[in-house]
């Protein structure tokens, strides 16, 4: 039992369904921006999305080809390790299931990599069966660069650093290898419901 903070009462939020807010999180209506470096601005005619690594044959899409893929419009809750949770966010993008169906692989993990050098690692089972997308619209508008546009990974069931901004590809690997924040003390898996914020949580 944590010690009582003398004189702290808290400003309890009236959340319609508290069961949607993971432990240690608070609900915000904002969409805060967090990133480790400058926002990259890759022109769309130089943009591509690539699935490579341990696959039978690497596959790439140009921006136009990517937009032509069948899309989905998920409405999801997102949870940032810096404690904010945003409910009912609306996105449009291509499911990772759809993208992975273009390759044959026996890999069990992947590293998502981004413009600007960011990486994050995920188990394949965390991004398949309708659990992840590469999203290019937010709230009905093209995804702003500050928020990861032109396209970002969207893995809402894990802390949001796993939803790599400015994502350009997935590299499939037989073994798990920590990405950017995962080597800087953040949890390898990042399940907000288990409050897996930092290494050892």
């Amino acid at each position, binding site marked *: 039992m944590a010690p009582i903070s003398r004189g*702290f009462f808290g400003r309890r939020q009236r959340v319609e369904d508290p069961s949607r807010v993971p432990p*240690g999180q608070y609900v915000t209506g904002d969409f*805060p921006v*967090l990133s480790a470096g*400058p926002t*990259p601005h890759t022109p769309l005619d130089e943009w591509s999305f690539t699935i490579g690594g341990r696959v039978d044959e690497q596959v790439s899409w140009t921006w136009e080809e990517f937009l032509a893929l069948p899309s989905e419009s998920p409405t999801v809750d997102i949870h940032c390790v810096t404690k904010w949770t945003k409910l009912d966010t609306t996105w449009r993008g291509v499911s990772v299931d759809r993208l992975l169906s273009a390759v044959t692989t026996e890999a069990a993990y992947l590293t998502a990599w981004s413009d600007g050098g960011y990486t994050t690692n995920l188990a394949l089972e965390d991004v398949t069966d309708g659990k992840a997308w590469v999203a290019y619209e937010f709230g009905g508008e093209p995804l702003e660069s500050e928020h990861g546009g032109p396209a970002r990974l969207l893995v809402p069931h894990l802390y949001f650093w796993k939803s790599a901004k400015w994502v350009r590809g997935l590299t499939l690997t037989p073994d798990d290898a920590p990405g950017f924040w995962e080597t*800087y003390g953040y949890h390898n898996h990042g399940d907000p419901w288990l409050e897996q*914020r930092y*290494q*050892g949580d």
Partner: protein
Amino acid sequence: MAGTALPRRLNWQLGRVVELVGETDRTKSIVLNVPDWQGHRAGQHVDVRLTAEDGYQAQRSYSIASAPEDPHLVLTVERLDDGEVSPYLTDVLTRGDELELRGPIGGYFVWEASLGGPLLLIAGGSGVAPFRAMLRHWSATHSSVPTRLLYSSRSLDDLIYGAELLDGYYDGVDVRIALTRQWPDDWQGHRGRIDGELLHQVAWDPGDRPLVYICGPTGFVEAAAQALVGDGHDPRRVRTERFGPTGT
């Protein structure tokens, strides 16, 4: 941190408030004695957790404003009027109270002498907090790394660590203050927002490969980072941290 050692959990621990320093009308530094503190690197942060009598809890992150070499852990907190945790920390917490925290957290937005420089620190408002840790570390290690702090504040009254920064405590650090809203008639520093021209003057030549840290509100960080990258600085030498109220 990325070694082969088994991850050790960052446990919640208690610090006792030994002093509260009013930095500005809205900002206080909380000086803590944390008996079990295992050290940190300049630029890292901690999570603070408050618990009400009925068990309700709230957590937030705050940058560490003290150097690893300092005897106490210091957190500098800006009061956000609609905040839940910061008004408690600035208005209710008193000397002798205990505060629950865990850390240190984050391993990227850190500077230590071995990373070299030239070192350029760009702060907007309360984003200056982690830079105090870096500057104090710079001083404590008698670093010879050429270092500049470019700090944007609304007015002199809003200047955090004003006495330290203006009175030459960091002898050898080139401190440049930009006042954006109000300045004394005889103000010798920059008047107005930090812009591309000022950054161009202050940021060394891109060929010198300065290591740049920017911390402040999102719009401030975005503008400064874009100006530097546009000026030819290597984006991979520009580290950013967003600060203050959420938004945009």
